[in-house]
């Protein structure tokens, strides 16, 4: 393990893309055609007016550019880094047909970094309405909802069970994509709008839901999802939780135990992030184990390509059945070969084991990243659910009047992502505002 000592996490896990220089940004911004009713804007879940913010970079009105971004997406600095732009704005760019799409994500990062690095606030709190809103969970959905409500003049308190706010932006996205400081800068921006953020406060532990409902005019639940579910195989207690693995790589990378031969179970974006961390922190061999094929994997195509370039190996049509432990140490992952059958409930071909095809994949560390449990809070608070997620109406209101929810915890449809959470938070804030300050009352002011 001596070779491990020369790996410096702050170097190998540092943000992957360098910032654009002023020159690069202006050249790229000038390449943008400035489409009218642009498809990139349609493709963005928060519908940022992308041609407008890019044109403002071209005219060197970078503060105006950042404001254009943040008006539509308060977590614009995070989204600039973590959005699957190939599937969203950049994937819809008309220049895909001509040459190559505009680097929208990196231009968005250029503009938002510009204001954060200079301490420029582009918004201020609205005139006080006298209304109080509680937000449970300080991830992207909660922070966006809180910030938008503060802009509208409401008094907002965010309760966060973790030590640091930011949710998955802080804890769950590898530094390679988003440094912790970026997520925390967004938290500070929201705080400067007058939002109070109380950490270490957990609903059902040291925070009473009934009391919250009594003391606040509205509640927004943005609690995310639960832990990585159990596989239900022998030796599971020796498997490392993928989200904890990523969290450790951000909070205490020196203390993260990384095997020499790591098996990662799952083939989503989090699984790829786990594999990337393992590889970069010195694992000689990292193998991703997935029971279906590359056609069904939930990781984005660009993430898959990235992983292959990192030297990560893939074992498709392979299902783990047992962790092999010898003398208290993991020595391998026993797997069985799979084949694809008829489509299952998800519409994807159902994998089934090939009898007698068991084999052992040598591994001294096994990490699992196979999604997250549905929000347990729904049951606890007695909220109606949809496929296990909190059920909301078009206004993001739950079955309890005045209680709203958004983000991953309501994601019954579509794929969970930061940008979708931001849009939920924004739209929920507007709905809460409409409820707390009806139009006529606003007009009377």
């Amino acid at each position, binding site marked *: 393990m001596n070779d491990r000592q020369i790996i410096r996490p702050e170097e190998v896990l540092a943000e992957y893309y360098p910032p654009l220089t002023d020159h690069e940004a*202006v050249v790229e911004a000038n390449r943008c055609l*400035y*489409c009218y009713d642009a498809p990139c804007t349609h*493709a963005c879940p928060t519908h940022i007016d992308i041609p407008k913010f890019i044109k403002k970079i071209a005219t060197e009105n970078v503060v105006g550019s950042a404001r254009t971004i943040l008006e539509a997406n308060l977590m614009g600095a995070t989204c600039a880094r973590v959005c699957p732009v190939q599937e969203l704005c950049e994937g*819809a760019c008309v220049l895909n047909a*001509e040459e190559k799409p505009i680097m929208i994500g990196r231009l968005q990062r250029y503009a938002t970094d510009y204001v954060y690095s200079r301490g420029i606030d582009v918004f201020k709190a609205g005139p006080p309405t006298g209304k109080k809103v509680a937000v449970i969970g300080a991830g992207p959905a909660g922070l966006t909802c809180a910030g938008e409500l503060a802009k509208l003049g409401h008094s907002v308190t965010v309760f966060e069970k973790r030590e640091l706010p930011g949710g998955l932006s802080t804890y769950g996205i590898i530094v390679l994509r988003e440094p912790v400081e970026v997520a925390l800068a967004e938290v500070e921006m929201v705080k400067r709008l007058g939002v109070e953020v109380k950490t270490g406060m957990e609903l059902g532990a040291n925070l009473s839901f009934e009391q919250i409902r009594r003391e606040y005019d509205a509640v927004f639940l943005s609690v995310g999802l639960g832990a990585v579910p159990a596989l239900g195989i022998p030796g599971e207690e020796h498997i490392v939780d993928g989200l904890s693995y990523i969290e450790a790589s951000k909070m205490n990378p020196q203390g993260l135990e990384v095997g020499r031969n790591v098996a990662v179970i799952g083939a989503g974006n989090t699984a790829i992030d786990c594999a990337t961390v393992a590889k970069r922190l010195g694992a000689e061999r990292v193998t991703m184990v997935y029971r279906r094929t590359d056609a069904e994997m939930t990781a984005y195509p660009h993430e898959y390509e990235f992983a292959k370039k990192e030297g990560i190996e893939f074992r498709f049509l392979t299902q783990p059945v047992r962790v092999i432990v010898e003398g208290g140490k993991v020595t391998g992952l026993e797997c069985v070969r799979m084949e694809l059958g008829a489509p299952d409930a998800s519409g994807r071909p159902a994998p089934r084991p090939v009898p007698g095809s068991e084999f052992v994949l040598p591994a001294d560390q096994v990490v699992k990243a196979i999604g997250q449990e549905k929000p347990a809070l729904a049951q606890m608070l007695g909220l109606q659910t949809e496929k296990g997620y909190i059920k909301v109406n078009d206004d993001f209101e739950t079955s309890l009047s005045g209680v709203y929810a958004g983000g991953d915890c309501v994601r019954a449809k579509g794929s969970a992502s930061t940008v979708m959470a931001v849009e939920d938070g924004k739209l929920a804030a507007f709905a809460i505002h409409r409820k707390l300050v009806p139009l006529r009352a606003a007009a009377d002011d």
Partner: protein
Amino acid sequence: MADLRINFAGIRSPNPFWLASAPPTNSGAQIHKAFEYGWGGAVWKTIGAPVLNVSNRYGAWHYGGQKMLAINNVELISDRPLEVNLREIRDVKRHWPDRAVIVSAMVESTPEAWRDIVLKIEDTGADGIELNYGCPHGMSERGMGSAVGQVPEYCEQITRWVMDVAKIPVIVKLTPNITNIVYPARAAVNAGANALSLINTINSIVAVDLDTLEITPNIGGKGGHGGYAGPAVKPIALNMLSALGTDEVVRRSGLPISGMGGISTWKDAAEFLLLGASSLQVCTAVMHYGYRIIEDLCDGLSNWMDSKGFKSVDEVVGKSLHRISDFKDFDLAFRAVARIDPDKCIKCNLCYVACNDTAHQCIDLVDANGNLVQPYSYDVRSNGKLEAVGSRPQPVVREEDCVGCRLCHNVCPVEGCIEMVEVPSGRASVTWDQLTKARPEVGSDWEAMERYRKEVGIDIH
């Protein structure tokens, strides 16, 4: 291979490209180098009256990430001693007998001063003289340059003084800083000049510094108008060139015209030739990229001439001039409409917004089922590239309403996507001149105009 050689008022050069009188022709060493690269000729940076220059003398206009669409300068004529220039001119001409070496001159407005400079230039063996009546800054404040070019009588007088003594061809270089370029050109013709050249630089202030509020470029806290040149001035130069080519007096005189003003590529060069220039001068493009651009200027021009079957430069000169026309002689029955090729269209909607906001409102957005849709009408809950691209409507021209203004063609970023297609108007050919001669009331009375429109079937929505 097309023959690029020219004989311009008796001045011969192996190709039509001369370096214009400007910083690139400031010294013998520079011109030796330029000729090694293949330039056909050089007009020596203006020699004459003693001057002193200032720093920050070149400004530039950049746009959309493109550097130096135009340059602006307050540099004066040569600040090197006259004797040094004359010695180097002699040396260059002796080394390059096949190249055109023309010397630009500007002295105070006395017959003695002009006679003296003409004799000194002729003594070097130079092939010709260009009279600088165009410099718009500094020299004009001393009664020279454009101060001469702007007054046809001065032009004529000074040209006469020169023609009285000159034995080599004399080119009169005109300033564009004048209402009608034809008048000083006619003055030069009257005075017996051998050739004309245009355009010199245009009065300009290039920018104001938004940090310091100083003029750009800043000359010790001050700034002022300089001479504007480069790609941005080409259309102005082409217009002035064609104004001379279509002027009866200038045309009859048969004087050749050396064209300049924004020539950067062989394409620009071909356009100047087609509108009547028979030698070409280049400055800004060289100041941007160096002498090496001569290779593509010649190569591109030659290849284009080959592709068009032109064997010599003479065959190209003035070929498009007969098409220059006044508005009153345009055919009012000519009709073209825009047509968008849906296979090439990338759906940027720049044509749609240009047409609907600023032109004639005849482009619609049509969805896959043929229904008209309004911009920004998608459901805000939809997102992702598949929905955005899949539901994107196609801009379509309503040809019956299209006036053929050509704005959409101009803004379209895709080559060959929006074409202007000639369609029958169903009307007999008639020009405004013919129409108003036959029915004068149509040009003076709206009711008569309406009657005429109804008669011939012109409907303006």
